[in-house]
């Protein structure tokens, strides 16, 4: 079945440094990938999404590129801020309009001063 793998459970960084959170997936459908961010005691919110191969998508300083050849959708930011401390989920939908959604296990990002 479909799956999403996030290899890092916890990433700790100092403010101002770059970050990359890994996300790889497996599916037999045309993939629709998402990054959701969940701050402490809040609901997950969409950060960015893509279904277009090799096209960079950006939002709030974060960016990601869907690479179908390597089944990856890594999340990056060039300079993290304290407010970026949160739980980040990569998610896969079974195609545009698909009803099934699979979430990765999440990566907690902790940014220190």
């Amino acid at each position, binding site marked *: 079945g479909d799956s999403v793998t996030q290899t890092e459970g916890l990433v700790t960084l100092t403010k101002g440094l770059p970050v990359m959170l890994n996300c790889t997936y497996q599916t037999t459908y045309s993939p*629709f990938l*998402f990054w*959701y961010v*969940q701050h402490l005691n*809040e*609901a*997950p*919110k*969409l950060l960015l*999404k893509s279904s277009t191969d090799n096209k960079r998508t950006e939002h709030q300083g974060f960016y990601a590129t869907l690479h179908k050849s390597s089944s990856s959708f890594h999340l990056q930011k060039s300079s993290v801020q304290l407010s970026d401390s949160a*739980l980040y*989920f990569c998610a896969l*939908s079974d195609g*545009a*309009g*698909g*009803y*099934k*959604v*699979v*979430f990765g*296990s*999440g990566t*907690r990002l902790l940014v220190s001063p």
Partner: protein
Amino acid sequence: ETAVFQTPNYHVTQVGNEVSFNCKQTLGHDTMYWYKQDSKKLLKIMFSYNNKQLIVNETVPRRFSPQSSDKAHLNLRIKSVEPEDSAVYLCASRSGGDTQYFGPGTRLLVL
């Protein structure tokens, strides 16, 4: 205000009791979901409804049953709660652009 609303925020109950959670969305979406987020923060889809019809029913115990009166409402009933049901239950609705909008969640504690 358009959003996803859930009640109650928090519920404490004992093993064997029945509980019900409510979810309402005012976003005009056709598709709604129930997710379970456990203590390790893992998010797992439980059910998906499209316009009152059950579309996705993941492997969940039979004591869980979703109910939808119309496309804006999706409730969840747990017939006889077990300790492992302690979790945060998140309701979400989905736009045509596939983005999911989550409610604030209902935290269930089973003693």
